[in-house]
């Protein structure tokens, strides 16, 4: 089987719309979470929301980068996807070295073109107005995958994965398996989402899982998640092709584990998360004592963080309290189908720069969790193996195992 390495990175996120800006904010602990401006369609001062903050991509003008025909026929989420994928492909110079039908595009997007859907539906139901003729192309969840293919001229397998908050991680995991097996020689993979519409915020508000203050995973006083948006994309290819063309290698993906809780549509179960982590390690031929960093799902809800901690204790036993862990959602927010890809990017940068990002917002680590949460400043250390966890609503779990690249040939 092929070894699979990461040779290109791209992102449009609340903490940076280039990988360099994302990395700077990641290691500076500069959060992208801030009060959102009023939604014009919202009634009253409170807008019917218990929370006031989100993690938005700032100063995004698709017209600076995309043809007008693409802009008018796409939702914001697809525009994020195209531009992040373009960065990753250019960063890795991928297409000069791989046949276009031998490259896959596997991306995660759970919500589709949410803004377009909501805008047109509101017009239709409140004014009996006509629906914009490009609503279908703007709302289809696979539009991002298709547009990356069109934009870059990639003709291999193209798929969108929708597994709620694990979509991006499932996508990267499947792309990893496809490159490892030799089905394709390279892949562009990641996630994208732009769900910060008024209706979506109200829906999440009604679930009472969004923080009225700010997402602070693993904090004793944590009170919920903060919603975000954005995209992160990676280029994966075989080690053989990366070395043959002398590409920069940022990290190696060595394992992928999936599981389902088969339990509840919102309440997580620790056994499912533990199983996904165990399978990722088995896939990587690694043992639990080799894990030196966990990029947690860490949403900042009481339920997720307690369940994820319980899963880590189940799997790692006495080591659980000593494995450095952080949730970068405290910086870039929870961008649903994209978030696993943003976290994979954060993990890759951590491995590459030997700096583990700190968890922002924590006032006091919850002692009941008994975890080594990285606080205040990044921890400077080299890591042998890292896990990146995604644990979605509906009990769909996906875990990537990554290593810094070491030439063992």
């Amino acid at each position: 089987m092929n070894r699979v390495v990461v040779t290109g990175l791209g992102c449009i996120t609340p903490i940076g719309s280039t990988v360099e800006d994302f990395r700077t904010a990641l290691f500076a602990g500069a959060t992208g979470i801030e009060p959102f401006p009023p939604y014009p369609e919202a009634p009253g001062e409170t807008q019917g929301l218990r929370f006031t903050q989100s993690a938005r991509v700032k100063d995004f003008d698709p017209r600076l980068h995309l043809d007008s025909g693409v802009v008018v026929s796409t939702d914001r989420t697809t525009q994020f996807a195209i531009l992040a994928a373009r960065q990753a492909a250019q960063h890795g110079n991928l297409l000069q070295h791989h046949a276009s039908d031998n490259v896959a595009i596997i991306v995660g997007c759970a919500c589709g073109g949410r803004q377009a859907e909501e805008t047109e539906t509101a017009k239709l139901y409140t004014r009996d107005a006509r629906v914009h003729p490009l609503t279908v192309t703007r709302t289809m969840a696979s539009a991002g995958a298709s547009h990356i293919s069109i934009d870059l001229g990639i003709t291999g397998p193209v798929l969108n994965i929708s597994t709620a908050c694990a979509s991006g991680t499932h996508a990267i995991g499947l792309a990893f398996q496809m490159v490892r097996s030799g089905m394709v020689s390279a892949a562009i993979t990641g996630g994208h989402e732009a769900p910060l519409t008024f209706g979506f915020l109200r829906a999440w508000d009604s679930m009472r899982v969004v923080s009225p203050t700010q997402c602070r995973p693993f904090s004793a006083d944590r009170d919920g998640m903060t919603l975000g948006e954005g995209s992160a994309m990676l280029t994966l290819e075989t080690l053989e092709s990366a070395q043959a063309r002398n590409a920069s290698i940022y990290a190696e993906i060595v394992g992928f584990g999936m599981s389902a809780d088969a339990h509840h549509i919102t309440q997580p179960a620790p056994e499912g998360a533990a199983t996904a982590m165990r399978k990722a390690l088995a896939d990587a031929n690694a043992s639990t004592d080799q894990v030196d960093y966990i990029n947690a799902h860490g949403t900042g809800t009481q339920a997720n963080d307690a369940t994820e901690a319980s899963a880590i204790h189940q799997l790692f036993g006495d080591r659980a309290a000593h494995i450095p862990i952080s949730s970068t959602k405290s910086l870039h927010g929870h961008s649903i189908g994209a978030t696993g890809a943003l976290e994979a990017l954060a993990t890759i940068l951590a491995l590459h720069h030997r700096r583990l990002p700190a968890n922002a917002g924590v006032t006091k680590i919850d002692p009941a969790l008994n975890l080594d949460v990285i606080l205040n400043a990044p921890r400077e250390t080299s890591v042998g193996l890292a896990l990146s966890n995604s644990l979605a609503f509906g009990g769909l779990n996906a875990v990537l195992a990554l290593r810094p690249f070491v030439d063992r040939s």
Partner: protein
Amino acid sequence: MEDIAQRCIEIIAKSKSIPADSITLDSTFDELNVDSLDKINISFEVEEAFSIEIPDEALGTIKTVGDMVKGVTQLRENHPPATVTTP
């Protein structure tokens, strides 16, 4: 007519992200790089702006900005019913 022309030009300029003063009544949609998606978007915006409905058969015959302005003007005059003939 002038108001209609100005509004049509503004809609095309916004949709194509080009300066309004680069568009004249003689500009063809080909010259303005208006592709099929642009055209469907521009037509929808024009319909919304003037509260008209451009018939399917008319869409294919509109080649220039002037054609569009003439068609909109006719539809406005004949409204209702909404029909249009274009060159």
